[in-house]
């Protein structure tokens, strides 16, 4: 070392490459896993990844990286991270980013971009991913200066997980990752919490006190605000019956006596009847989505509404409430202290729940998927996390599995993304290694990300896949049967590959069942196996999801199964 350097009191740190700054920023945020796929424009970051503390999970399609990051974010509550190159790598992330946006999931998506001088010239693998994703991100950045990297990453993580969470995209031009800089220290400003509106709290308590038939209608916003405990306390304190949206499942445990089940299109009849008869709807973290409400003007038509949400923009969007309370959901719920006198009403609701409980005594010897899922859920217990794909099997999971926490049910609620199940299972296994992670998929959905069996195998992720195979696009077939006069159009998948063979060829244990007597032993084997495993279940292609509210109908006009 030269004497001049020795004499220097505080030597300037050596400039660091942008790519190194990216990796350091991720490490500073406590990131452990990054789901991604390399390519030209992101190569500097891949170069810097080696030797870092981050574990990179090499998926086989970028969509799976984004969907796995989504599930990781749902389970941990911290942003899941995905990484892709420019052009097709970036556009392959789009479905996963939209999935996270519509379900308000914290995510940071990092895309490589062509070098700054080439941007806007239609260069090789240049797409405007910033522009493409504007409608489906909470926020996004193009990093123009290497020195801004630490600050922008810190902001991105803060934005992705604060308030109503969502995906944040960071587009990184190649030269910005290669150039070096000595970033300045920075501080993010504090975010002051908004004060509660005391007058509205008082009004809400007054409405609760005088209600004769109140119902709590809760949704995914409860888990987002991590307000499950406050919701359970409120429901118990008041003794008010409650119903859940698809995304709220688990916020109140399925076995709570006053919990009536999921409402809406494939909801429990008791839940829809309670909503129809209620005189006060206490909506917590739900958003009057059409799948939940059916025909909006007949939804809780006689009820006054108290709407509580972390996001002020949800209040009054589709139904103007008597009282709107935006802010910290737990604090608001803690301030609702009135207790209504509703013993008869609660009793009536419990009786309806009992009367309309699902039946599992389906005729025949074939496998009845709802019964299998119920048995699986009971056997897997509280340590289970279910991820699903989209279709009939997704609704059966929602209807027949038990959830005691919202993180135990990962479903693509807003976007309805076929192909979510397996990548989400990968994300969940890495996010919570002690959990028993089970993906329930359909034969259509499974093929949308079948390549991820290779990722399961590579990292030996102990995901348990239950593939419900009706050799149809079942949900579409059901609608064609019921609402398109049985004009079956492009739903036949009877030329599916042999799924057990497919799994075997990826080096994954698999077996097939098609008879009711095989269900119990199959579940035992599934749960006993320590590595990844696929249970292929053949079911009757004509099976439908019941009950069902036809489109544009009120939720009490439910169609029921025939036996």
């Amino acid at each position, binding site marked *: 070392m030269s004497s001049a350097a020795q004499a220097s009191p505080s030597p300037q740190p050596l400039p660091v490459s942008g790519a190194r700054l990216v990796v350091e920023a991720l490490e500073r945020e406590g990131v452990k896993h990054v789901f991604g796929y390399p390519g030209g424009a992101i190569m500097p970051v891949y170069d810097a990844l080696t030797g870092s503390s981050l574990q990179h999970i090499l998926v086989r399609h970028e969509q799976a990286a984004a969907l796995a990051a989504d599930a990781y974010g749902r389970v941990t509550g911290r942003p899941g991270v995905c990484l892709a190159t420019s052009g097709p790598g970036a556009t392959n992330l789009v479905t996963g980013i939209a999935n996270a946006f519509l379900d308000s999931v914290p995510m940071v998506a990092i895309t490589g971009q062509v070098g700054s001088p080439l941007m806007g010239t239609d260069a090789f693998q240049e797409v405007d991913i910033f522009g493409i994703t*504007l*409608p489906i991100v909470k*926020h996004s*950045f193009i990093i*123009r200066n290497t020195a801004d990297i630490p600050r922008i990453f810190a902001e991105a993580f803060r934005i992705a997980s604060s308030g109503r969470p969502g995906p944040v995209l960071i587009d990184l031009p190649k030269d910005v990752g290669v150039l070096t800089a000595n970033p300045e220290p920075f501080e993010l400003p504090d975010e002051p919490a908004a004060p509660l509106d005391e007058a509205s709290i008082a009004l809400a308590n007054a409405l609760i006190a005088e209600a004769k038939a109140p119902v709590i209608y809760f949704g995914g916003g409860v888990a987002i605000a991590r307000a499950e405990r406050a919701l359970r306390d409120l429901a118990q304190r008041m003794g008010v019956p409650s119903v859940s949206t698809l995304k709220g499942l688990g916020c109140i445990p399925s076995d709570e006596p006053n919990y009536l089940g999921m409402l809406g299109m494939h909801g429990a009849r008791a839940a829809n009847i309670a909503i129809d008869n209620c005189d006060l709807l206490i909506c917590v973290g739900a958003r009057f989505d059409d799948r939940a409400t059916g025909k909006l003007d007949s939804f809780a038509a006689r009820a006054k509404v108290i709407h509580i949400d972390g996001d*002020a*923009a949800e*209040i*009054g*969007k589709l139904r103007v409430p008597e009282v709107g309370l935006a802010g910290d959901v737990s604090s608001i719920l803690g301030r609702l202290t009135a207790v209504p006198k509703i013993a008869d009403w609660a009793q009536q609701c419990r009786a309806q729940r009992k009367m309309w409980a699902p039946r599992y005594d389906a005729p025949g010897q074939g496998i009845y998927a709802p019964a299998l899922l119920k048995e699986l859920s009971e056997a897997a217990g509280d340590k289970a996390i279910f991820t699903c794909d989209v279709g009939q099997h997704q609704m059966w999971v929602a209807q027949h599995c038990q959830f005691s926490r919202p993180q135990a049910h990962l479903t693509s609620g807003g976007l309805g993304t076929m192909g979510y199940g397996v990548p989400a299972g990968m994300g969940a296994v890495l996010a919570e290694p002690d959990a028993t992670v089970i993906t329930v998929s359909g034969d259509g959905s499974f093929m949308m990300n079948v390549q991820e069996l290779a990722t399961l195998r590579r990292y030996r992720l102990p995901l348990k896949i239950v593939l419900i195979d009706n050799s149809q696009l079942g949900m579409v077939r059901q609608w064609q049967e019921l609402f398109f006069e049985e004009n079956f159009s492009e739903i036949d998948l009877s030329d599916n590959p042999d799924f057990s063979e497919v799994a075997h060829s990826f080096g994954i244990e698999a077996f097939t069942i098609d008879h009711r007597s095989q269900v119990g032993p199959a579940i035992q084997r599934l749960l006993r196996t320590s590595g990844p495993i696929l249970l292929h279940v053949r079911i009757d292609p004509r099976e439908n999801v019941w009950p069902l509210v036809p489109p544009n109908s009120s939720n009490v006009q439910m169609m029921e199964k025939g036996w």
Partner: protein
Amino acid sequence: MTERLTVEFTPAEGAVIRVLGVVERRGYVLRGLSMKEKADTASLVIDVEPREASRRVPVLAQQLARLVDVRSVSLAARDAGSLA
């Protein structure tokens, strides 16, 4: 009916398209627009008309307010004058 929104925001990259994108995607027609920029803040005055009657402009104002770059949104009934 056309209504006027004033949106104060940090003029970061993409901020203007983000604001206008929300207006259009949430079911409004843009009827008028002007922008001013001063130091590190900017403001857009936007005249909007809902595509169907059930849309409520105060909800749009909240949807704009939650954009990261937006500092405030105010809503005023449109005066007779045109946008400067």
